[in-house]
Every structure is written in structure tokens, then in C-alpha cells.
């Protein structure tokens, strides 16, 4: 139930994001979701792609600082309060969210949100128990 996310260190200078996406494009790697966290000097790009291990290798070979992090992809009902419900479940169990971002595409029933938490397994189990749909990695890559 875990999804592999690719994280890349990027300096804040023009053209870097274009170069990186170009490298992935050439290798026929499709981006499913992304987010950038940035400071004044650098940014961290986080990607969900269709072929994470291949993307990791390609970016590494191309000289990027890159890592793979386990995250979870959660289906959230696409209605007011949908996200709040999921957050409340995690909060009440004392699970801290390092960051989250939304998917570009929607699943059939709701919106997809990527969560990065420290206790990944615990969170997956907890959400499943509360009937929240946590997507399998293989399903996410296929989207």
C-alpha cells in the first residue's frame, strides 16, 4: 500500500526543472503527481512517476541528488470536508504529516492526495481500518 516517491535536490536557478523533466521525458517516464518545496536557495522536487525505480536510476546517472521515499496515496472524497476527515484520523492517532500534495489526476471516485508521514505502515493500517481507500503503488503508477 506504499507508493515510491522520487525526491530531487534542485538549486534555485533557471532551467533546472526544465532539464530534469526533459531527462524523464526522453526516458518515457510519465509524471503522475509532483510538488516543490523551496527555500530562497534551493528546492526539493517530489515526483510520483509511472516507473519510480527507473526514474531514480536515470536521474542519478544524470548527476542529480535523488532519493526514494515511501509515501501513501489516499483517496479523499471530492466534497467539502473530505480531506479534513482523513487528516482527523491521522491526527487523533498522533501521526504527524511531514508534507502532502494533491494528485494531478483524479481517481474514479474522489481526489487523490499524497501523504508523507513518519509512520507509514501505521498510517496505512489505520486508514484502511477506517475505510479510507489507500491506493497500491502499482495502481498509482498506472494511473
Amino acid at each position, binding site marked *: 500500500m506504499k507508493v515510491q516517491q522520487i*525526491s530531487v535536490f534542485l538549486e534555485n536557478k533557471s532551467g533546472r526543472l526544465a532539464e530534469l523533466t526533459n531527462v524523464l521525458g526522453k526516458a518515457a517516464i510519465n509524471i503522475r503527481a509532483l510538488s516543490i518545496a523551496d527555500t530562497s*536557495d534551493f528546492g526539493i522536487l517530489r515526483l510520483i512517476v509511472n516507473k519510480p525505480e527507473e526514474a531514480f536510476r536515470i536521474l542519478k546517472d544524470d548527476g*542529480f541528488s535523488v*532519493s526514494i521515499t515511501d509515501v501513501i496515496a489516499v483517496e479523499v472524497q471530492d466534497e467539502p470536508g473530505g480531506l479534513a476527515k482523513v487528516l482527523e484520523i491521522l491526527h487523533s492517532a498522533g501521526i504527524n504529516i511531514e508534507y502532502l500534495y494533491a494528485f494531478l489526476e483524479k481517481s474514479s471516485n474522489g481526489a487523490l492526495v499524497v501523504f508523507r508521514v513518519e509512520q507509514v505502515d501505521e498510517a496505512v493500517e489505520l486508514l484502511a481500518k477506517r475505510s479510507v481507500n489507500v491506493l497500491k503503488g502499482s495502481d498509482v503508477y498506472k494511473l
Partner: protein
Amino acid sequence: MYNPESESMPREQLRQLQLERLQKTVRRVYDNVPFYKEKFRDKGIEPGDIKTLEDLTLLPFTVKQDLRDNYPFGLFAEPMSEVVRIHASSGTTGKPTVVGYTQNDIDTWSELIARCVAMVGGTKGDVVQVAYGYGLFTGGLGLHYGAERLGASVIPISGGNTKRQLMLMEDFGTTILCCTPSYALFLGEEAGEFGVDLVNGKLRAGIFGAEPWSEKMRDELEKNLGIKAYNIYGLSEIMGPGVSMECECQCGMHVMEDYFIPEVIDPQTGEPLPYGSKGEIVFTTITKEAFPLLRYRTRDISVLTEEKCECGRTFVRMDRVMGRTDDMLIIRGVNVFPSQIESVLLNFGETEPHYLLVVDRQGTLDTLEVLVEVSEKMFSDEVRKMEELERRLGHEIASLLGISAKIKLVEPKTIPRSEGKAKRVIDKREL
């Protein structure tokens, strides 16, 4: 002249004095410092072989690595009970270079600095503001005791706190300022801001050193501060400031030859070069008790000249330091080796750190930026952890170097490599 008898001693007499003192020193280090005894054995010489000043070249060189290898007190020639002061400068790999002084050494140093202050026209009527750092660094305390010896009124303000420097300078009527030339320029710039008129004030001379500077900077300093600006030279290994100093003629720094014998050598071969040649400056201390050094290689490049100076002093003169034979940088008066940055990164678990020091001068103040390539090991996908890494690196580097540095994390392989070896320093300063 503070001590005309010594400072204008006829050269023949000076050479005789040097020989006597050298022989005594050689005997002492041979007897008291195992490091030197061994070196003498390796070279197959004995103290008795030093019969003339020319025999100096028989003696072994001492290099900074020898000081490191004998950390902390291994090269001291006196028991610690005789040592009254210890100074240290930051080393290249974390451990500092340590030097010691007996009371006689401190007295000698004071005499030298008293001469220096007198060289810029200082007397007991002067007010001397010592804005060199006080502490392990030799600048502050060195100038302090010497100016006191002369009988001047000393303001031991140490470095920094520009506003207070200017306030006291005006209120106390400072006549002689001692600091790094770049800090003096900075004071000059800030003076206007705080409404202090230096040009028409009492300040009339500056004793500037601890970092390289230029004639262009001298012109600026003299104009902006309304003073005469003089160059002082020294290094803690030999004594501290006051090893050589410019007189009123401002035409090179007189080496205090009754206490140190200077040589110029070819840095590649170690062969002595004649006066007038550019090369590495080497000093032998000939009176020091606690920490005598034979033929210490300073790594500073300069020229010695024996031509008589108009001031009447007979000591040879040394040009401004023109460069280094190693990669040492002087930033805000602090000696910095790129390898120090490397040692910090190694402590962070990096096996092959890639980094670049970018030194610049913004206005009159040096800035140091350290670019560090983010390796896979350092990389975290959480901003919080990356910022924490930046902070910790900055803190570690600042505490090792003694000056602050801005850390900039950069992508792998973005620091230029030349012939497989990374370039470690970009110095954009124009002196």
C-alpha cells in the same frame, strides 16, 4: 627611534650579535627540544658546526606540519613552569598551532611593538586604540603590551562593535589606530554615518596588518581617515605582530634583525636566494626561550633588501607580502585553509566532499561563502532537514575558522573540476 642603539646598529656589529645569539639558540634547541636533536642527527650536524652566520644554511627547516606533529607543547624549549603565555592560531585540520612565551619573550615582544609604534611617530603622549582581536590571536595582546611599554594610553577595545569604536575614538581622542586594513576602511566608511569626522579629528596614524593589502588601499586609507597608514607584519609562530614594521619612510618593513634572522629561499628547492630576489621568507628566532624556531618557512612570498633606509635604521627591509606558497587565505584577518572546510565535511560523514570557497569583498568587508555539493548521503527530501544541515555546517565551519561563512547547498557535479581535481577557492577580492 625607540631604541636607536639597536635599531641603527652598524651591520657588522649586528651580524656579530646575530651570530652569538644564533649559536646560543642552536645549542638550546639541541639540548631541550628532541625534535631538533633528531633533525640535527639526520643532517649529521652538531651545534658546534655553526661557526659563522653563513652556517645558518646548514640548519634544518621547520614547517607548519612540524608544529602540528608536536601539538601542543612538543616544540617548547622551556618547561611549562617558565611559560607565562600561550597563543594559538587555527590549524588546518582542527587542531590549532600553539606557541608559548616566557616572561622574557613577552618583554622582547613588547620592546618590538614599542619600536613599531615609535616608527609611526608614537610617543607616551599618544592614545592607541587596539582594534585587533584580543585572545588566542596574537594581534590584540601583542600591540597592547608594546604600546603600554612605550608609555602610550592604550584602549583595549578589541575587534568589532564599529559604533563604539568610532564613539571612543572621538571621545578619547585616539591618535593611533591598530587593526586590519580592511576594518580600518570600514571604520572610515561608517564614520560618516555616525557623524564622526575622522579626517579632521585627532587620529593621525594607523598600524595595519594581519592580512594582505596594497598601495591602493594605503592611498584610500590615508585619504579617507586623514592619517598615515603603516604596514606591520608578523606571525604567531615567530612572535606575533612586530616581526617587521614600516618606518616613517613607508618603503618596506624593517625586520627586527636583532631578534630574528630573515632569509629568502626558493620555495621549490629550498635554496637560499640573494637580497633583492623574490621568494619565500624564512625566519630563525635568536632570542626566544619558550618557542624558538630554526629556519621557519612562513609560506609568505616577498623580497628582502639590504639598501640603507633614510630613517637611519640598519635593519633589512621586507616588501609587502605578495602571495603564498600554499593555499592559505586571509579573510577578515583570519587565516583560512580550504582543507579546514574539508575536515568539517568529513566529520559530517562525507567521504569525498566537494566544496568551493568564494571569497569576496562587499564594500570593505570580506565575505566567505562556502558552496557544498549535496551528496546522496546529505540529501533529505524534507526542507526542514536540509535547512538544519545548512545551519549545522555553518555553525561547525564558523567555530573552526573563527569567522562566519554563508553555506550554499548546490547540486552534485556543479562545482567546476579541473583535471579531475576540484577547484577549492575563488577569490574575487581586489586589494
